[in-house]
C-alpha cells in the first residue's frame, strides 16, 4: 500500500505540492488526472524515489522511497514521459536490464512486444518515438513489480496502439500490482483507470473508484434539461449533464465531464466524496 501523508514539494520558491494526503490500495489501476503544472509528474518522481519530499512522509510497504534501498527499487518501475533511445536491440536491452527486477519475465516481454507489433530485434535508437515508447511499456509490464508508475504512457502512440495499450495493461498486470498512470488522454484510458485521482493546485480534489463516482453522481446523456445540473456540455446528438445522484441508479461515468464538474464545484465534490459509506 502507498500512504502519502501531508507531503509538500517545491522547485525553489515555486511550491508545487502542498499538504497532499492520499492512500493507494494494492491491485488497482489508478488514473492520475490534473491540469498542466499541478504536479502529477512531480508526485510520480517522489513516489519512485527520484526526488525528496520537503515535508510530510511517503510510505510504500514500509519503505521511504527516497532511501532508494535496492529491495524497494526492485519492486517498482517508473516509466517517464521521455524515454532513452539506447543503441541496443530491444531484446538485448530486456535481457541486460530486466535482471534488476527479480520477477522480470522475458517471455512476457516478447508477448507484449508482439501485441504492440514492435520488433524485438530492432535497435532502440533506430525506432520511431512510438515504437520506443511501446518497447518501454512492454518492459515496464514485464517487470512484474508491485508498483508501476507511468507518466503519460499513451503520448506518441498511434491509434491502434492505444487499444493495444488498454488490452496489455488489463491482461498483463498482476493481481497485486498497483499502477499509477498520469494522463491527459482520458479517452485513451477510459474503462481502464479506476480509481480516479484528480489533483489540483496544492489539493487532492477526488480519489474515488468508478462505482463510487457512479453512486454519487449521475451522468445524464438523455438531453432532457435537468435543473440542478452541476455541469452540462453539448455533444452531437444531445448533451451530457452531471448532477448529484438521487435516484440510486448508476450511469456510465464520463471522465472528461467528471473532470470539468469537479473543477467547477471543488468544495461540493470534496464534501460529497468525504462521506464514505461503509
Amino acid at each position, binding site marked *: 500500500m502507498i500512504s502519502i501523508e501531508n507531503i509538500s514539494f517545491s522547485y525553489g520558491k515555486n511550491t508545487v505540492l502542498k499538504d497532499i494526503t492520499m492512500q493507494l490500495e494494492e491491485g488497482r489501476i489508478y488514473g492520475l488526472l490534473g491540469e498542466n503544472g499541478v504536479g502529477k509528474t512531480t508526485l510520480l518522481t517522489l513516489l519512485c524515489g527520484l526526488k525528496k519530499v520537503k515535508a510530510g512522509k511517503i510510505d510504500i510497504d514500509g519503505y521511504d522511497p527516497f532511501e532508494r534501498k535496492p529491495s524497494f527499487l526492485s519492486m517498482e518501475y517508473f516509466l517517464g514521459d521521455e524515454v532513452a533511445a539506447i543503441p541496443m536491440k530491444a531484446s538485448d536491452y530486456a535481457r541486460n536490464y530486466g535482471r534488476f527486477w527479480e520477477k522480470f519475465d522475458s517471455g512476457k516481454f516478447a508477448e507484449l512486444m508482439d501485441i504492440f507489433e514492435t520488433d524485438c530485434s530492432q535497435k532502440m535508437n533506430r525506432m520511431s518515438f512510438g515504437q520506443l515508447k511501446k518497447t518501454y511499456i512492454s518492459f515496464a509490464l514485464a517487470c512484474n513489480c508491485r508498483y508501476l508508475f507511468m507518466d503519460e504512457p499513451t503520448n506518441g502512440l498511434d491509434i491502434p496502439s492505444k487499444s493495444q495499450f488498454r488490452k496489455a495493461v488489463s491482461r498483463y498486470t498482476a493481481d497485486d500490482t498497483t499502477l499509477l498512470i498520469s494522463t491527459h488522454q482520458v479517452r485513451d484510458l477510459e474503462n481502464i483507470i479506476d480509481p480516479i485521482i484528480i489533483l489540483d493546485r496544492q489539493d487532492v480534489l477526488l480519489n474515488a473508484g468508478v462505482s463510487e463516482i457512479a453512486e454519487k453522481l449521475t451522468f445524464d446523456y*438523455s438531453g432532457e434539461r435537468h435543473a440542478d445540473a452541476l455541469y452540462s456540455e453539448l455533444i452531437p446528438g444531445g448533451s451530457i449533464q452531471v448532477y448529484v445522484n438521487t435516484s440510486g441508479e448508476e450511469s*456510465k461515468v464520463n471522465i472528461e465531464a467528471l473532470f470539468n464538474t469537479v473543477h467547477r464545484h471543488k468544495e461540493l465534490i470534496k464534501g460529497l466524496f468525504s462521506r464514505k459509506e461503509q
Partner: protein
Amino acid sequence: MEFDSNRPIYLQICDSVCDRILGGELQPGGRIPSVRDYGGEIGVNPNTVMRSYEKLTDAGIIFNKRGIGYFIADNAREIVLEKQREAFIRNEVPQILKKMSLLGLSPEDIF
C-alpha cells in the same frame, strides 16, 4: 467492444454475457474467460469485469469453481429470459407506448 450506451460498463458486460447465453453462443456448463483475459480482450479494467462476474454470480447465471474459473449455470438461460422479459416490460414497453402516443400510432398499426 464498443461501449456507447449510457449504462455503466460493468452492466454492459453483464448484458453482453446474457445476450450470448440467449443466443446460444455460451452453453450451460461452458467456461467463460477469466476476469483478466476478458478484461484484456475488451480493454477494460479487470476490477470492472470482476464486478460484472460478481453480479452474474449473485443472479445465479454463472458460478465460480474455486481455482478453476467461472462457468455458465445449468439454468442460466431460464434466469436470463425471466430477467430480461421483466426488464423489457418494465423499461422498454413504457417508452414504446410513449413514443407511439407521440406519433399517434395504435397497436393495430404495428402488429
